[in-house]
């Protein structure tokens, strides 16, 4: 397979996973989080620090490590942010995201400052029958397997009673509380779970990209992830993947012609989607699918 195509597909899966994790809190619970790039980022930085500063390259340590860090940070963020609602939640996650951005730029010795950390190779799988060193195609398959597992877990979670309670909170939180649900705990748990999956994406990303820098961590990066969720369709889980496909493919093709204008194109897409295509692409596909299947019968 053409290497740039493999690269694009891997990237789509990684950001698809990140977007799905955001969809969990944004689409299903209705929390506007602008901190997800920060969660993704701390996991990526943690992985990079493991590899570069402590020379731990075993994937089976780095992955849980990254997830753990992301989970902890998500817990802290959630604890702070869930005290307030809607617009204030958005603002707090914004502040927290920028705080992380500031932290990674400041502590140069640990995080490489504005330059970030570089030189991370494909992960070391250290398992009997697995290849010792991965090629980019090999890494793609690894990412694919991890993505499928995570997507399966998320899908199961979202269609469980817990998942339905999330939707209940989105629709009418006071009624849920009236029914006896501990909505704070549910939201908090959802936020941490979301952080764990963002963490997985972060670890995969740092291995894929070889470098992690502050730009991947700030609010503008969170905005890009939110765009993916919205374009694909919030609250549909697969919409997040579709969003990732659309945005990253677009970015890839624009990058071939006029890479410097990509943020402009992305901004225009963003504005158009918000104004015209509010439900995202997935609901349209869903309707199309229904029409097609009912035609046949």
């Amino acid at each position, binding site marked *: 397979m053409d290497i740039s195509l493999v690269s694009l597909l891997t990237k789509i899966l990684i950001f698809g996973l990140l977007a799905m994790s955001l969809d969990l809190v944004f689409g299903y619970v209705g929390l*506007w989080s602008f901190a997800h790039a920060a969660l993704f980022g701390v996991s990526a930085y943690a992985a990079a620090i493991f590899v570069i500063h402590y020379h731990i390259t075993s994937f089976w340590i780095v992955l849980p490590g990254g997830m753990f860090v992301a989970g902890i940070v998500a817990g802290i963020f959630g604890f*702070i942010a869930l*005290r*307030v*609602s*809607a*617009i*204030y939640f*958005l*603002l*707090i996650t*914004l*502040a*927290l995201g*920028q*705080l992380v951005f*500031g*932290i990674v*730029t*400041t502590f140069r010795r640990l995080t490489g400052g504005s330059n970030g950390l570089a030189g991370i190779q494909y992960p070391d799988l250290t398992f009997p029958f697995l290849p010792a060193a991965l090629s980019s195609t090999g890494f793609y398959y690894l990412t694919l397997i991890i993505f499928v597992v995570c997507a399966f877990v998320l899908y199961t979670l979202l269609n469980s009673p817990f998942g339905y309670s999330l939707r209940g909170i989105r629709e009418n939180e006071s009624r849920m509380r009236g029914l006896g649900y501990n909505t704070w705990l549910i939201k908090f748990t959802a936020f941490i779970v979301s952080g764990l999956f963002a963490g997985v994406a972060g670890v995969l990303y740092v291995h894929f990209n070889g470098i992690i820098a502050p730009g991947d961590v*700030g*609010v*503008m990066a969170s*905005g890009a992830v*939110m765009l993916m969720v*919205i374009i694909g369709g919030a609250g549909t889980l697969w919409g997040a993947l579709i969003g990732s496909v659309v945005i990253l493919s677009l970015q890839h093709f624009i990058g071939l012609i006029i890479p*410097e*204008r*990509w*943020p*402009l194109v*992305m*901004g*225009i897409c*963003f*504005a158009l989607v*918000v*104004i015209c295509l*509010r439900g995202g692409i997935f609901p349209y596909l869903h309707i199309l699918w229904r029409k097609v299947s009912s035609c046949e019968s």
Partner: protein
Amino acid sequence: MDVLTIALLSGISFGMVLFLIASGLSLVLGLMGIINVAHGAIFMVGGYIGVTVGNATDSFFFAVLTGAVSAGVIGLVIERGFLRNLYKKELDQILVTFAFVYIMTNITLWIWGPWPKNITVPSMLTSSVPIGSFRFPIHRFLVIFVGGIVCVCLWWLQEKTKIGAIVRAGMDDAQMVSVLGLNLTPITIGLFVLGSSLAGFASVIAMPMMGGVNTELGTSIIFTAIAVVIVGGIGSVQGTLAGALLIGVVYNLAATYFPPIAKFTAYIAMILILLFRPSGLLGRELQRQF
């Protein structure tokens, strides 16, 4: 002692710049319920246009004027062109302004290139005043002075004019205002344009002090401005002033005595306020359900 004085004066002058930027943001948030994330980008573009005019005409006055007016025009375009279509959908409006940050930053990069630009200042403003064994730029006193005048004017507008009364009423209960037969729309548009113009104005007037304009400004200054609005309190001029001066001074003191935490002071203040006193230091108790 001199170091402290310099730090405080620098903090107050920086606070004034923040006030000028944040006041527009705060009033729009109070009345319309939307956070114009593109406000920082408007600040940036106003500055770039001001610089171009200023360096072409060698007139600082014209630079400030065109900076303010062009920023106001951009604000008008965003409000009438895009935000109007999302009436009552506040979170969508925020997303659209977010999109505009990407758009405006990239267009600025396209037109003016990646290198920072600075304005040539009239010679009377480049001198400095001795304070102890240091020298403090006259220009910063100008910023404090101008900021103070704008503050007084805005306060007067808010407290002593009929329009101000309508704005305050609109923040409390917009529905009641329209029931009383007052049309809030031209006022909200006017407020949005005024806020944007102030941002453009601030950009040029403070440019020598801020070290010029660059393409990062669209995304860097907005978060500090949002922190100012939250800390000071939404919707009131005095609140924004309080928040701006507080953050400006604390930032400068931190930069002088504890540099590593300077960057974080605004965000930490914002998080603390949101947790313990969400309406801000001097904010209005908003009836609006967020």
